[in-house]
């Protein structure tokens, strides 16, 4: 893809811009679809039908919502910090969008094929914390402040289990570059990292299985916390903190918060998919594999997890802030240490 753009444009800056466009277009389209999906899934879980009037089964409702948000008055609290207030949502979106740069959508397309791909994603998405703190502080609202404090504590705590779980996958595939991680899982779903990876013997696989599956589930749990979804949606706990850090936001800025939340949902799903479920690899070995099928498989797997996140959100209640910390530091992290040790031990044998 990079060569294609190179031949078309020539200028490296234009090539970079062109390379950056596909994820952005994807995020925008995906957000529209997911907003619709979320409302419909939630409604059907709750014996409702959700919107039915805008188009067939209300498919145009996300568009209408978006138009409404664009038209809305943009209110900035007079006693807040104006610059930080305006900057915060864009910083949050930037963190998420930057993460998409290293996601290999297909064997032929990855925004930037950096060697430390996973590490880069973890680092880039950490910027989100700064944005959250800024928005909470700049709003000059006590509920927002509490919400942003919670989210900062939560995101920092859950970074650790996320990184440790990533480490398990990296140990099994031997690379931090996501393209190489995915290539190491070639040859059918039994070679995915979640089933032990492609480079180990069958006996090793049997012993690895409980640890890889545990790491994968923990990665998924931690990613729920990373994107502030139920049961870890404390920063925006409606019943406690009104709306958390984005209480004071309206109009387009609010829409950007929403957009980055949805984009983040896909990002963490895509990372989990790339590391543990073969990324763009087809589950049937070489069949249905290739640059275009790659996009299909990655988006399919990613959307599967997005739907799972939605399902969990509308089922479970919310944890309390101390229980959240307990889960991270005293349950998930020690379990992952055991996993890492066990995986290393089995690999050495």
């Amino acid at each position, binding site marked *: 893809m990079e060569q294609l753009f190179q031949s078309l444009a020539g200028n490296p800056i234009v090539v970079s811009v062109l390379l950056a466009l596909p994820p952005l277009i994807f995020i925008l389209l995906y957000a529209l679809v997911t907003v619709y999906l979320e409302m419909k899934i939630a409604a059907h879980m709750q*014996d409702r039908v959700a919107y039915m009037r805008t188009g067939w089964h209300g498919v145009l409702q996300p568009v209408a919502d978006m138009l409404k948000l664009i038209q809305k008055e943009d209110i900035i609290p007079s006693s807040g910090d104006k610059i930080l207030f305006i900057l915060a949502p864009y910083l949050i979106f930037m963190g998420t969008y930057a993460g998409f740069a290293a996601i290999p959508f297909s064997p032929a397309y990855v925004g930037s094929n950096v060697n430390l791909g996973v590490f880069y994603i973890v680092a880039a998405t950490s910027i989100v914390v700064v944005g959250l703190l800024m928005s909470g502080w700049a709003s000059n609202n006590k509920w927002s402040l509490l919400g942003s404090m919670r989210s900062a504590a939560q995101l920092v705590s859950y970074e650790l289990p996320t990184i440790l779980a990533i480490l398990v996958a990296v140990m099994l595939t031997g690379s931090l570059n996501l393209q190489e991680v995915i290539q190491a899982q070639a040859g059918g779903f039994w070679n995915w990292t979640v089933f032990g990876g492609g480079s180990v013997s069958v006996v090793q696989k049997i012993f690895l299985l409980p640890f890889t599956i545990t790491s994968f589930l923990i990665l998924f749990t931690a990613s729920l916390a990373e994107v502030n979804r139920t049961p870890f949606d404390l920063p925006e706990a*409606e*019943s406690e903190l009104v709306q958390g850090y984005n209480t004071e936001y309206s109009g387009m800025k609010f829409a950007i918060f929403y957009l980055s939340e949805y984009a983040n949902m896909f990002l963490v799903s895509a990372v989990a998919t790339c590391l543990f479920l073969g990324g763009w690899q087809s589950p049937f070995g070489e069949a249905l594999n290739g640059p275009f099928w790659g996009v299909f498989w990655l988006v399919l797997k990613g959307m599967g997890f997005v739907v799972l996140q939605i399902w969990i959100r509308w*089922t479970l*209640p919310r944890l309390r802030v101390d229980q959240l910390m307990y889960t991270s530091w005293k349950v998930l992290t020690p379990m992952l240490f055991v996993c890492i040790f066990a995986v290393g031990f089995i690999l050495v044998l």
Partner: protein
Amino acid sequence: MIESKVLPTDYVTKPADLVTSTGRSLRTDEMIINMGPQHPSTHGVLRLEIVVDGEIVVDVIPHIGYLHRCFEKHAEHMTNYQQVIPYADRMDYVASMNNDWGYALAVERLLKIQVPPRVEYIRVIMAELQRIASHLIALGTFGIDMGAFTPFLWCFRDRERILDLFEMTCGARLLYNYIWVGGVSHDLPAKFVERAKDFCAYFKPKIKEFNDLLTYNEIFIKRTANVGVLPRDIGINYACSGPMLRGSGIDWDLRRDDPYGVYNDVEWEVQIGRGEMGTVGDVWDRFIVKVREMEQSVRIIEQALAKIPDGNVQAAIPKRIRPDAGEIYVRTESPRGELGFYIISDGTTSPYRVKARSPAFANLSVIHEIARGCMIADLVAIVGSTDIVLGEVDR
């Protein structure tokens, strides 16, 4: 404005105890936050002034009165005792039938009249249906307080069926004006008994479904067990009643202990909290008491529907009610607890004084005792578990 109070002993972190190597205290200031009147989880227009140290609630001061509508003064200025009933409807707007009955019963006792047996059964059926509807709202909104949205809509789906029953009986879905002094406004419609039986059959499995989704959810139990424990003595001292008091393990239900209606003719059991998931009197206990009371209400309704006799639905009372001068206090068990009406008559056609003793008011007043030292999220759970309706607190 804020009284200085001694910090509770189970304070989670004690910044005051932490000192740096140079001996400087690390104690930081508390922050005062207004929770409400426009807050999603204050169940109406309650304003809680909370003093927090980080996430920990140091003190809670409830401010009420945002929904004050002068019920008692209005009642004095009616030209007829019957005219007070629509106002009683609007006190606890999610349990109007129970309010109507409380007021009507008080006037009937003042008049020293007996209502026909059919009326007694109709009233029991209506009051218990209303109790289920009210508890459904309480449980559903409590689910929202805990971050679970789906149970709330399931509750409303089931409540809708009860409202349909009320609608076919008296035309209204929320404020009924159905139970009148001396009887009820209409007889039950033709298919009511059948439909109500259908509802009971429909509703019983739904309770189990609700329990599976929310009540026995691990996260929900973690959030509610051992939180907001109301000790028996504090509960009694603050005159708590209803599920709030029963949640603390006190076996006290006016339907059985100060009987009215035909509650003695049907079989049912008073439900109390037993501390199954944590301590007796915690939020989970108050929650499960309401769930089990719904099961008991279904039992009562089923028996009452089977036993309901034929007959008049209005006792022979004069068109203009003119009780002898005197006073009376009558208490009934509303879904929230002891709902009392104290009526003074001076022999004219309108009451001289009506005082409503609202259970939600007493239940709310205990919050600052049990919420100190908990976290903000727990405070939301505690407020939700007290099941207040601000219309009744303020009247």
